[in-house]
């Protein structure tokens, strides 16, 4: 709940900054959300297609993954009223945002893993030294 309030506050501030009216900004957010769902569904479906072949419920998982993208796609076509050029532009922008987000997220988390692994190894060495000192005594 607090997270959604922060997101709403951010969105209102950004609407003011962008100079667009509220309706246009809401449409931009909703369209981006739908396109992100379509792209996520495409990636998930292609992963599921090859990963869950031997799963007893493989067909229903693939159908579910495809339908996650299918309904937003229908919604974008039905509600959006955009030309193909505009739709392609939104698709490209959201794809670029997804790629940038994945790169940044991977960077932060792998850096955390690197630092934590190193700290744990140092702690292990210290612990080993302490044990050997105890045994010498």
């Amino acid at each position, binding site marked *: 709940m607090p997270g959604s309030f922060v997101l709403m506050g951010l969105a209102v501030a950004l609407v003011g900054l962008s100079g667009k009216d509220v309706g246009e900004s809401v449409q931009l957010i909703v369209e981006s959300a739908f396109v992100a769902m379509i792209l*996520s569904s495409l990636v998930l479906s*292609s992963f599921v297609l*090859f990963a869950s072949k031997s799963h007893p419920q493989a067909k*229903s998982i693939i159908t579910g993954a495809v339908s996650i993208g299918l309904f937003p796609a229908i919604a974008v076509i039905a509600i959006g009223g955009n030309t193909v050029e505009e739709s392609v532009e939104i698709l490209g922008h959201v794809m670029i945002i997804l790629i940038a987000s994945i790169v940044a997220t991977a960077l932060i988390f792998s850096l955390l893993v*690197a630092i934590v692994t190193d700290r744990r190894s140092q702690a292990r060495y210290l612990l080993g030294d302490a044990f050997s000192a105890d045994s010498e005594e």
Partner: protein
Amino acid sequence: MPMLSTGRTGGCELDTWAISFWIATLVLIPSGLGMTLFAKRSMKRVGILVGIVGSAMILLTTVLGDSSSFEREVSLTLLASLGPSIMMGCSTILLIFTSDSPVKPLPRPLRWFGWGGLLLGLGWILALALFSPPTSSGGAVSEVWTIWLTSFLLILLTLGLTSIIFLLSMGEARYTEIISILPLPVGAGLMLNYALTAGFKGLAPEVALGRFAEASLMLIGTVLGTGVALFLFGLVLYVSERGITQLPTASPLTDGEKELIRSRVERGREIVTQVDSTGGESDS
């Protein structure tokens, strides 16, 4: 290049390079990645081949496609961001494996190359933004590049600060980690501040501000959409796992199988009694 009409009123006409670009990005590369990661060994080679074909199609769109097309802008941005991303990725891998890793740890002095590579990757992005950002056909800074840069910096800033707050809540023992992560959000914040106050090459601060706001709105939508998609996928997995009521039961044994088991058990008993009797004799 022949043009293919989309057949929609008020729409545009996509040329074949544009269509091949979208086939490559939306079909070939995800399925190639899926095959390489999850398919059986024989299919992995096919997956790598599909990925290479997809990348080649994107490259061909950049070189041979219409210079004013949107797809060319996207592929130029992807190419521009590829170098720094690979550099930062390799550097973090170097950082992971130069610690006391259980899998073939690398020599400790290489750790400095890891830190250096990470900062060089960020510096590469800054240099691109300052001196030679990807441009659209008119010579203006590409809007797609601005969106990539804004999203990358915003996510780096948000996640970096979130992890620092999380580490702060764990007390003094985590100060070393905080100091190690701090350069990333600070660098991202400084770059964002510079973009919005002084502006990057060919991008005045007021234009940058508008694009920043628009990209941030799309980023909010993208985060929401991806979150919902992942939640729904989790739900699909949960429901299908629940659908499996029980494992298939084994069919009952036939008379022949029962007879075989009975004879084996009898034979086992005979062996045990024989061993007991011989063992008893040797003991006595």
